[in-house]
């Protein structure tokens, strides 16, 4: 089953100055969200494989939308994250079925590389519910400058029988990172952690 997409929302958040100090290059975070029909709304369905396949499709689509919004190639992407909001006719587990079993593979393929865990969040919500998409460096989860999150909301979604699925990609860490820890130039990029 392919996703029945009602709308796609893409947002780019670019921070140029923080506390009077220029951020150079700017911190840039893109989020692409798709509003899809929830084929299992209103009923308890045991096998969620259809949603898992939708996760594959959206992993590819939304990651590429983020890269396009940032006007960068995959080699310039630095951190990533994913999230879903399930409308009230669904179950939290529907978000899990989209996000976890298979979505990572197309996301990593679109970014060429990304051995780290893709951080995630999920919730139930009504129209306009915001969600904080957690962010981590795609090559090493412990890169401290890239621990972050980006909020997105779609004002008219999710309706009762819809799910909002979001992927975030950045080309930078937080503005003015200065709390130490593993730095991005120290990444080994083998085990997903460091």
């Amino acid at each position, binding site marked *: 089953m392919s996703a029945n997409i009602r709308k796609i929302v893409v947002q780019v958040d670019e921070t140029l100055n923080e506390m009077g100090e220029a951020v150079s290059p700017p911190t840039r975070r893109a989020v692409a969200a798709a509003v899809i029909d929830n084929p299992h709304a209103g009923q308890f369905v045991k096998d969620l494989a259809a949603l898992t396949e939708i996760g594959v499709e959206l992993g590819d689509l939304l990651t590429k939308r983020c890269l396009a919004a940032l006007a960068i190639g995959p080699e310039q992407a630095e951190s990533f994250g994913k999230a879903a909001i399930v409308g009230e006719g669904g179950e939290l587990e529907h978000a899990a079925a989209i996000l976890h*079993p298979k979505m990572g593979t197309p996301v990593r393929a679109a970014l060429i590389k990304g051995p780290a865990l893709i951080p995630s969040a999920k919730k139930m919500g009504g129209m306009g519910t915001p969600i904080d998409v957690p962010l981590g460096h795609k090559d090493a989860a412990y890169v*401290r400058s890239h621990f*972050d999150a980006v909020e997105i909301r779609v004002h008219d979604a999710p309706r009762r029988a819809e799910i909002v699925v979001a992927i975030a990609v950045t080309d930078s860490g937080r503005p003015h990172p200065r709390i130490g820890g593993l730095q991005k130039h120290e990444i080994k990029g083998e085990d997903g952690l460091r």
Partner: protein
Amino acid sequence: MSSLIDIRRICTITEEIRRETGPAPGHLLKRAAVLAVLTNPYAGRYEPDILPMMEALKAPGLEMAKRCIGALGGDAKSIAGYGKGAIVGEAGELEHGALWHVPGGYAMRELLGNAKAIVPSAKKVGGPGARLDVPITHINASYVRSHFDAMEVGVPGHPRADELVLVLVMTTGARIHERVGGLKASEISVWDGQR
């Protein structure tokens, strides 16, 4: 306690999830969050060296982690998932929220028997009443699929402009009706914090 630490309010939230759509679940899921509202000592200016606050947060971090375990019944062995987060008031910087990573994360890991997994996190700058989705993973292996979750939290009226809201979240188990496969908690074998 350090002069950098001024706790104005502590809010504890506990959730007990008894059923979802479908059949009665075999277990009860409990989730708890402890949120501390602190004065942001760096509000209103650009302070290059903020690391003293990171050190000063160690003691309140441990205190909050203890409260969170207490909110779930007091048995550290019953804790299976965790996460952390920060909301920075409008006179502060996102980076001030990042100060919470080390003291918040290591306090929980220590009290939970040197938990192996990186503590997932989220942060934002927000106004009074801002909500935050705190991501959650299994405490010993980030890839345990049944425990991926998030908890929405916030403190009514906070953070004010010169405040920080720091958050710890713990859970007692998997999502209700977890059924999307993947690594199970019973299959953790590598002990690298991931699998």
